[in-house]
Protein backbone atom coordinates (compact mmCIF):
# COMPACT_ATOMS: atom_id res chain seq x y z
CA UNK A 1 0.00 0.00 0.00
CA UNK A 2 2.74 2.39 1.01
CA UNK A 3 4.86 1.35 -1.97
CA UNK A 4 1.97 1.97 -4.32
CA UNK A 5 1.40 5.39 -2.83
CA UNK A 6 5.04 6.44 -3.15
CA UNK A 7 5.32 5.24 -6.73
CA UNK A 8 2.16 7.12 -7.63
CA UNK A 9 3.66 10.16 -5.98
CA UNK A 10 6.91 9.72 -7.88
CA UNK A 11 5.05 9.60 -11.18
CA UNK A 12 3.04 12.65 -10.19
CA UNK A 13 6.25 14.53 -9.36
CA UNK A 14 7.92 13.49 -12.58
CA UNK A 15 5.03 14.56 -14.74
CA UNK A 16 4.11 17.63 -12.76
CA UNK A 17 7.79 18.41 -12.45
CA UNK A 18 6.83 20.35 -9.40
CA UNK A 19 7.74 18.95 -6.02
CA UNK A 20 11.43 18.41 -6.59
CA UNK A 21 11.98 21.61 -8.53
CA UNK A 22 14.72 22.82 -6.22
CA UNK A 23 16.98 19.83 -6.73
CA UNK A 24 16.12 19.13 -10.37
CA UNK A 25 18.59 20.49 -12.85
CA UNK A 26 16.92 21.39 -16.08
CA UNK A 27 18.79 23.25 -18.79
CA UNK A 28 17.49 25.82 -21.29
CA UNK A 29 17.61 23.34 -24.24
CA UNK A 30 15.57 20.90 -22.13
CA UNK A 31 13.14 23.61 -21.02
CA UNK A 32 12.60 24.62 -24.65
CA UNK A 33 11.89 20.98 -25.50
CA UNK A 34 9.43 20.53 -22.62
CA UNK A 35 7.55 23.74 -23.47
CA UNK A 36 7.35 22.82 -27.15
CA UNK A 37 6.26 19.25 -26.31
CA UNK A 38 3.54 20.57 -24.00
CA UNK A 39 2.18 22.60 -26.93
CA UNK A 40 2.35 19.68 -29.36
CA UNK A 41 0.44 17.48 -26.92
CA UNK A 42 -2.42 19.96 -26.72
CA UNK A 43 -2.45 20.34 -30.51
CA UNK A 44 -2.77 16.54 -30.86
CA UNK A 45 -5.56 16.49 -28.27
CA UNK A 46 -7.39 19.25 -30.16
CA UNK A 47 -7.06 17.40 -33.47
CA UNK A 48 -8.55 14.30 -31.88
CA UNK A 49 -11.46 16.35 -30.48
CA UNK A 50 -12.09 17.91 -33.91
CA UNK A 51 -12.32 14.42 -35.40
CA UNK A 52 -14.62 12.94 -32.76
CA UNK A 53 -16.73 15.69 -31.21
CA UNK A 54 -20.03 16.98 -32.60
CA UNK A 55 -20.50 19.55 -29.84
CA UNK A 56 -20.30 23.18 -30.98
CA UNK A 57 -18.67 24.42 -27.75
CA UNK A 58 -16.13 21.60 -27.68
CA UNK A 59 -15.25 22.09 -31.35
CA UNK A 60 -14.88 25.85 -30.76
CA UNK A 61 -12.63 25.23 -27.78
CA UNK A 62 -10.50 22.70 -29.68
CA UNK A 63 -10.06 25.16 -32.54
CA UNK A 64 -8.95 27.83 -30.07
CA UNK A 65 -6.38 25.43 -28.59
CA UNK A 66 -5.10 24.43 -32.00
CA UNK A 67 -4.72 28.03 -33.15
CA UNK A 68 -3.07 29.34 -29.96
CA UNK A 69 -0.63 26.48 -29.46
CA UNK A 70 0.44 26.47 -33.09
CA UNK A 71 1.07 30.23 -32.90
CA UNK A 72 3.04 29.98 -29.66
CA UNK A 73 5.06 26.97 -30.79
CA UNK A 74 6.01 28.84 -33.94
CA UNK A 75 7.14 31.72 -31.74
CA UNK A 76 9.13 29.26 -29.62
CA UNK A 77 10.83 27.78 -32.69
CA UNK A 78 11.72 31.26 -33.93
CA UNK A 79 13.22 32.03 -30.53
CA UNK A 80 15.35 28.88 -30.26
CA UNK A 81 16.62 29.49 -33.77
CA UNK A 82 17.52 33.06 -32.87
CA UNK A 83 19.22 31.94 -29.65
CA UNK A 84 20.92 29.05 -31.48
CA UNK A 85 19.56 26.63 -28.91
CA UNK A 86 18.79 23.06 -29.97
CA UNK A 87 15.86 21.71 -27.94
CA UNK A 88 16.97 18.58 -26.12
CA UNK A 89 14.74 15.61 -25.38
CA UNK A 90 14.61 14.65 -21.70
CA UNK A 91 12.75 12.56 -19.12
CA UNK A 92 10.05 15.16 -18.44
CA UNK A 93 9.27 15.53 -22.17
CA UNK A 94 9.15 11.74 -22.52
CA UNK A 95 6.90 11.34 -19.46
CA UNK A 96 4.54 14.04 -20.78
CA UNK A 97 4.37 12.43 -24.22
CA UNK A 98 3.80 8.97 -22.76
CA UNK A 99 0.98 10.15 -20.49
CA UNK A 100 -0.60 12.07 -23.38
CA UNK A 101 -0.46 9.06 -25.70
CA UNK A 102 -2.19 6.94 -23.07
CA UNK A 103 -4.83 9.61 -22.59
CA UNK A 104 -5.52 9.82 -26.33
CA UNK A 105 -5.87 6.04 -26.52
CA UNK A 106 -8.35 6.17 -23.65
CA UNK A 107 -10.33 8.98 -25.30
CA UNK A 108 -10.32 7.23 -28.69
CA UNK A 109 -12.62 4.56 -27.23
CA UNK A 110 -15.26 7.16 -26.34
CA UNK A 111 -17.79 9.06 -28.39
CA UNK A 112 -20.57 11.63 -28.04
CA UNK A 113 -21.06 13.29 -24.67
CA UNK A 114 -18.73 10.78 -22.99
CA UNK A 115 -15.88 11.87 -25.20
CA UNK A 116 -16.70 15.57 -24.82
CA UNK A 117 -16.73 15.37 -21.03
CA UNK A 118 -13.53 13.34 -20.84
CA UNK A 119 -11.70 15.59 -23.32
CA UNK A 120 -12.65 18.80 -21.54
CA UNK A 121 -11.92 17.33 -18.08
CA UNK A 122 -8.50 16.26 -19.34
CA UNK A 123 -7.90 19.73 -20.80
CA UNK A 124 -8.56 21.27 -17.38
CA UNK A 125 -6.26 18.77 -15.66
CA UNK A 126 -3.57 18.99 -18.32
CA UNK A 127 -3.37 22.79 -18.34
CA UNK A 128 -3.31 22.78 -14.54
CA UNK A 129 -0.42 20.33 -14.61
CA UNK A 130 1.56 22.33 -17.17
CA UNK A 131 0.92 25.54 -15.20
CA UNK A 132 2.39 23.84 -12.12
CA UNK A 133 5.47 22.79 -14.06
CA UNK A 134 5.91 26.27 -15.56
CA UNK A 135 5.56 28.04 -12.23
CA UNK A 136 7.69 25.80 -10.06
CA UNK A 137 10.25 24.31 -12.44
CA UNK A 138 10.54 25.76 -15.93
CA UNK A 139 10.32 29.51 -15.28
CA UNK A 140 12.58 29.51 -12.18
CA UNK A 141 15.14 27.31 -13.98
CA UNK A 142 15.30 29.23 -17.27
CA UNK A 143 18.60 31.09 -17.65
CA UNK A 144 17.98 33.02 -20.85
CA UNK A 145 15.86 36.14 -20.30
CA UNK A 146 13.98 35.83 -23.60
CA UNK A 147 13.19 32.18 -22.95
CA UNK A 148 11.97 33.05 -19.44
CA UNK A 149 9.85 35.82 -20.92
CA UNK A 150 8.26 33.46 -23.45
CA UNK A 151 7.54 30.94 -20.69
CA UNK A 152 5.89 33.66 -18.58
CA UNK A 153 3.63 34.56 -21.50
CA UNK A 154 3.03 30.81 -21.96
CA UNK A 155 1.95 30.56 -18.33
CA UNK A 156 -0.63 33.33 -18.80
CA UNK A 157 -1.85 31.62 -21.96
CA UNK A 158 -2.15 28.22 -20.27
CA UNK A 159 -3.93 29.81 -17.28
CA UNK A 160 -6.34 31.40 -19.75
CA UNK A 161 -6.91 28.05 -21.43
CA UNK A 162 -7.48 26.39 -18.07
CA UNK A 163 -10.20 28.93 -17.22
CA UNK A 164 -11.67 28.57 -20.69
CA UNK A 165 -11.74 24.76 -20.30
CA UNK A 166 -13.33 25.10 -16.85
CA UNK A 167 -15.99 27.34 -18.38
CA UNK A 168 -16.74 24.77 -21.11
CA UNK A 169 -16.79 21.98 -18.49
CA UNK A 170 -19.25 24.02 -16.39
CA UNK A 171 -21.59 24.41 -19.35
CA UNK A 172 -21.72 20.66 -19.93
CA UNK A 173 -22.97 19.82 -16.44
Amino acid at each position, binding site marked *: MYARFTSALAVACLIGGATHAADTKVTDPQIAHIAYTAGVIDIEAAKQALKISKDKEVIGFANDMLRDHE*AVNKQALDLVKKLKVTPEDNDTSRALTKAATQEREKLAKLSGADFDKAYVANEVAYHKQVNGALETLLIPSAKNAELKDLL*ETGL*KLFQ*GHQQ*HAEHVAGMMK
Partner: protein
Amino acid sequence: MMRKRSLGAISGLALMLAAPSAWAETIRVTIEKLVFSPAEISAAVGDVIEWDNKDVMAHTATAKGDFDVVIPPKKMATLTVTKAGTFDYTCRFHPNMKARLQVR
Protein backbone atom coordinates in the same frame (compact mmCIF):
# COMPACT_ATOMS: atom_id res chain seq x y z
CA MET B 1 -35.40 86.40 -46.92
CA MET B 2 -37.41 84.56 -44.30
CA ARG B 3 -36.89 81.33 -46.10
CA LYS B 4 -33.15 81.84 -46.30
CA ARG B 5 -32.86 82.57 -42.59
CA SER B 6 -34.75 79.45 -41.63
CA LEU B 7 -32.57 77.40 -43.94
CA GLY B 8 -29.54 78.87 -42.20
CA ALA B 9 -31.03 77.92 -38.85
CA ILE B 10 -31.53 74.36 -40.03
CA SER B 11 -27.99 73.98 -41.29
CA GLY B 12 -26.74 75.50 -38.03
CA LEU B 13 -28.66 72.85 -36.13
CA ALA B 14 -27.25 70.12 -38.35
CA LEU B 15 -23.76 71.39 -37.62
CA MET B 16 -24.40 71.22 -33.88
CA LEU B 17 -25.64 67.65 -34.15
CA ALA B 18 -22.63 66.64 -36.18
CA ALA B 19 -20.21 68.39 -33.84
CA PRO B 20 -19.73 65.66 -31.21
CA SER B 21 -18.33 63.25 -33.79
CA ALA B 22 -15.82 65.87 -34.88
CA TRP B 23 -14.54 65.93 -31.30
CA ALA B 24 -14.70 62.17 -30.82
CA GLU B 25 -11.52 60.74 -29.45
CA THR B 26 -9.75 57.55 -30.32
CA ILE B 27 -8.57 55.69 -27.26
CA ARG B 28 -6.00 53.00 -27.74
CA VAL B 29 -5.66 49.86 -25.66
CA THR B 30 -2.58 47.76 -26.32
CA ILE B 31 -2.72 44.00 -25.87
CA GLU B 32 0.65 42.47 -25.16
CA LYS B 33 1.51 39.17 -23.50
CA LEU B 34 -2.17 38.60 -22.71
CA VAL B 35 -2.60 41.91 -20.88
CA PHE B 36 -4.92 44.81 -21.78
CA SER B 37 -3.08 48.06 -21.19
CA PRO B 38 -4.33 50.34 -19.80
CA ALA B 39 -6.63 47.99 -17.93
CA GLU B 40 -9.13 50.73 -17.29
CA ILE B 41 -10.16 53.44 -19.72
CA SER B 42 -12.71 56.18 -19.72
CA ALA B 43 -14.54 57.34 -22.84
CA ALA B 44 -17.53 59.39 -23.97
CA VAL B 45 -20.37 58.20 -26.19
CA GLY B 46 -19.16 58.56 -29.79
CA ASP B 47 -15.50 57.86 -28.95
CA VAL B 48 -13.66 55.06 -30.68
CA ILE B 49 -11.80 52.36 -28.78
CA GLU B 50 -8.92 50.87 -30.70
CA TRP B 51 -7.36 47.61 -29.57
CA ASP B 52 -3.85 46.98 -30.84
CA ASN B 53 -2.99 43.29 -30.54
CA LYS B 54 0.77 42.74 -30.38
CA ASP B 55 0.43 39.03 -29.58
CA VAL B 56 0.78 36.10 -31.98
CA MET B 57 -2.63 34.80 -30.94
CA ALA B 58 -6.11 36.22 -31.49
CA HIS B 59 -7.94 37.92 -28.64
CA THR B 60 -11.37 39.41 -28.13
CA ALA B 61 -12.75 42.32 -26.16
CA THR B 62 -16.06 40.97 -24.95
CA ALA B 63 -18.67 42.39 -22.61
CA LYS B 64 -21.46 39.84 -22.72
CA GLY B 65 -24.61 41.32 -24.23
CA ASP B 66 -22.89 44.62 -25.07
CA PHE B 67 -19.98 44.09 -27.42
CA ASP B 68 -17.76 41.37 -28.83
CA VAL B 69 -14.77 42.56 -30.83
CA VAL B 70 -12.33 40.01 -32.28
CA ILE B 71 -8.77 41.29 -32.59
CA PRO B 72 -6.66 39.07 -34.87
CA PRO B 73 -2.96 38.51 -34.09
CA LYS B 74 -0.74 41.53 -34.88
CA LYS B 75 -3.83 43.52 -35.95
CA MET B 76 -6.05 46.31 -34.70
CA ALA B 77 -9.81 46.36 -34.21
CA THR B 78 -12.11 49.20 -33.22
CA LEU B 79 -15.40 49.81 -31.47
CA THR B 80 -17.45 53.01 -31.53
CA VAL B 81 -18.95 53.56 -28.11
CA THR B 82 -22.72 53.99 -28.27
CA LYS B 83 -23.93 53.83 -24.71
CA ALA B 84 -22.95 55.08 -21.28
CA GLY B 85 -22.12 52.77 -18.42
CA THR B 86 -19.39 50.64 -16.91
CA PHE B 87 -18.39 47.67 -19.02
CA ASP B 88 -16.17 44.97 -17.58
CA TYR B 89 -14.82 43.06 -20.51
CA THR B 90 -12.68 39.98 -21.00
CA CYS B 91 -11.13 37.94 -23.77
CA ARG B 92 -13.40 35.03 -24.70
CA PHE B 93 -10.40 32.85 -25.55
CA HIS B 94 -8.43 33.73 -22.41
CA PRO B 95 -10.88 34.62 -19.62
CA ASN B 96 -7.98 35.61 -17.33
CA MET B 97 -7.58 38.76 -19.45
CA LYS B 98 -9.75 41.41 -17.81
CA ALA B 99 -10.28 45.13 -18.34
CA ARG B 100 -12.85 47.88 -17.83
CA LEU B 101 -14.39 50.53 -20.07
CA GLN B 102 -16.16 53.46 -18.40
CA VAL B 103 -18.42 55.44 -20.70
CA ARG B 104 -19.80 58.82 -19.64
